[in-house]
């Protein structure tokens, strides 16, 4: 029997990784974001995207939407740890595949190109609610809203059409129908 030289056990098989969207309602106070994010970084987990803003000024509530990847056990642990934080009011957790939840991200894309290419680009964005925010005779800034992978694809497709800069938000989420998170 070969001897392990560690006083700790060796890692065993890893579980399947899933992407989850975790929504957290918190008191809008200093350092609350670092408390939430610290739970991830302290365990060595990466946050894919993050969106946070105050949603209820009167109650001083902010809503944080986090996209992260982990094994079911890791995700469960994160959710339970989040619930223990003092400024956290409630936590909701969805799989990215969840059909009952709408996920959206927004992106601003800037193209520097001639009008023919810009026209082409606008056409390509058609499915993603394009809004022209700024336009000159050699450039355009377009706002699109879509899923993460769609924006990924768009930024790839727009490259030959003069894309020079992309600015993206994290995902935000909302349940379909009359239901709300509890």
């Amino acid at each position, binding site marked *: *029997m070969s*001897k*392990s*030289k*560690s*006083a*700790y*056990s*060796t890692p*065993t098989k890893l579980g399947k990784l899933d992407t989850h969207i975790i929504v957290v309602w918190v008191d809008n106070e*200093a*350092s609350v974001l*670092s*408390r939430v994010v*610290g739970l991830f970084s*302290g365990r060595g987990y990466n946050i894919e995207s993050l969106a946070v803003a105050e949603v209820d000024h009167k109650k001083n509530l902010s809503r944080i939407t986090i996209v992260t990847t982990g094994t079911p*056990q890791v995700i*469960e*642990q994160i959710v*339970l*740890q989040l*619930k*223990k*934080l*003092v400024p956290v009011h409630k936590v909701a957790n969805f799989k990215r595949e969840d059909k009952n939840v709408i996920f959206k991200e927004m992106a601003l894309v800037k193209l520097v190109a001639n009008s023919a290419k810009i026209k082409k680009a606008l056409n390509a964005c058609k499915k993603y609610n394009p809004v022209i925010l700024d336009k000159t005779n050699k450039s355009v800034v377009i706002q699109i809203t879509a899923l993460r992978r769609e924006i990924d694809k768009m930024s790839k497709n727009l490259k030959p059409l003069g894309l020079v800069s992309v600015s993206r938000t994290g995902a935000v989420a909302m349940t379909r129908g009359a239901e709300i998170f509890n």
Partner: protein
Amino acid sequence: MGKLYSGAEIVFKCLEDQNVDHIFGYPGGAVLPIYDELKNHPSIKHILVRHEQGAGHAAEGYARSSGKPGVVLVTSGPGATNVVTALTDAYMDSVPLVCISGQVPTHLIGTDAFQECDTTGITRPCTKHNWLVKDIKDLPRIMHEAFEVATTGRPGPVLVDIPKDIQFAKTDYSKPKKEKKIKERFQNRFTQKDIDQLINLMSKASKPVFYTGGGVINSGPKASELLRELVSLTGFPITSTLQGLGAYPGNDNQFLGMLGMHGTYEANNAMHDCDLLINIGARFDDRITGKIDEFSPKSKKVHIDIDPSSINKIVKVDLAIVGDVSDVISSTSKTLKKKNLNLEKSNKQKISKWWQQIEKWRTKQSLSFINSDEIIKPQHAVQRLYELTKDQDTFITTEVGQHQMWAAQHYKFDKPNRWMTSGGLGTMGYGLPAAIGVQVAQPKKLVVDIAGEASILMTMQEISTAVQYNLPIKIFILNNQYMGMVRQWQELLHEKNYSESYSEALPDFVKLAEAYGCVGIRAKNPNELDEKIREMINVDKPVIFDCHVDQDENCFPMIPSGKPHNQMLLGPKDQEENKITGKGKALV
């Protein structure tokens, strides 16, 4: 509008309203207004330590021996960073602490001011919660919330960082009304259905075992009484983690001893072979489970814990009961009695086979060692200490290392809150300041820190605190001139390459004791041991007892790295026997 109070006054008002009688601290520039206010509050006694880490550990010792939260007061910058080890220690071992730190004035925060550090940033991962008080009006609320957070649910440390200008600023203060617990999240979440399910599992089990931990102690002395009742009601065997020792009497026949890396043969084998494992207030720590894939492979697992995030963290369980241990046990016992399910009788036959098996394991006598007439064996020293102190209510603290494990194995506790050791973080240097805190909380009781010569040097300066306040703690050093546990691992796993584990240039502990103004005693051979221990007990002063023990002794039994419970290394006696019969190889 009533009278206005300064921030410093409000700190003490809150401490008074929280019935705090002792604080452990060290002054400095950013807490001077609070220290200035100390003289006006005679009901609160301040214990001046010699290093802020000592203040934290002393407060831990105080909290764990009294069941009340420990309070620490430190200055900004180095004061706060020095206390971080103690906060982390308290966080790992679920000890309620309220740490108040001074901070540079609000307008200087973020300017790299003298003795400034980002205290709330640094302590965020090692506290349950922390606050930077930026408005004097928030101070009373935050102070009271701090105590509530520290003491409810799974207890732990909190920190309140108060800038110096806030300590001077004034506001009104009224004693908070006793309101209902704000956080429902900290309350019991189990239902009678869970209890019925547990009882169903219990009645079906033929090889059950209770595995209890520090949660029983944290649930208060009543939990220990209830546990004893439940264990006798069911007739099940019980084992305990390091932190849980004392919740169940160590010399009772149903007690299998401690489990885990240095647990007994019977306890670990019972954990491995059982068909029902009932975890009460423990957390499946890696020193307990060994190799997780082969941890208790045949059992149904039940986990009773107040902290929902402890459930399924490491080991998937079949039944989770989230609630305060004493409430869960009391419901269980009540239901058992109501259903008139006297398991001890009805299940006697089923369990009797299990007990026969346990008795067989017991014959291994895994805690035995080869004693000597010439040299003091460390295990023998702990046993003699136990025999000579068991007639009085003794409180034991330890440092971290071999001596800690020998203390856990050979000192038998029969009451909760008598055993204070750093388990989760494993902080060398914990025991001496912790003993100070214990003695402050238990002024008339015998308090012994079972120590190693390497650990004790990490916080040695605190003996000066003990002398200052006439705290007659006894530092019982098992001196083997090695960082024993490091040396043991090097012997067993690193081809006896004793890299940097020899304690070179040790002080003369007897002279050191005299230099500090306490009493030094040295024992070098087994014949004088008893007499010297008695001498130590009878001195009404702090004592440093330098007990010279066998340098080469290893702590057995032991589950080596990443091995399951049923593959233990036993002591030299067994290894010798097994060498002859050739069975030893299977065990190693």
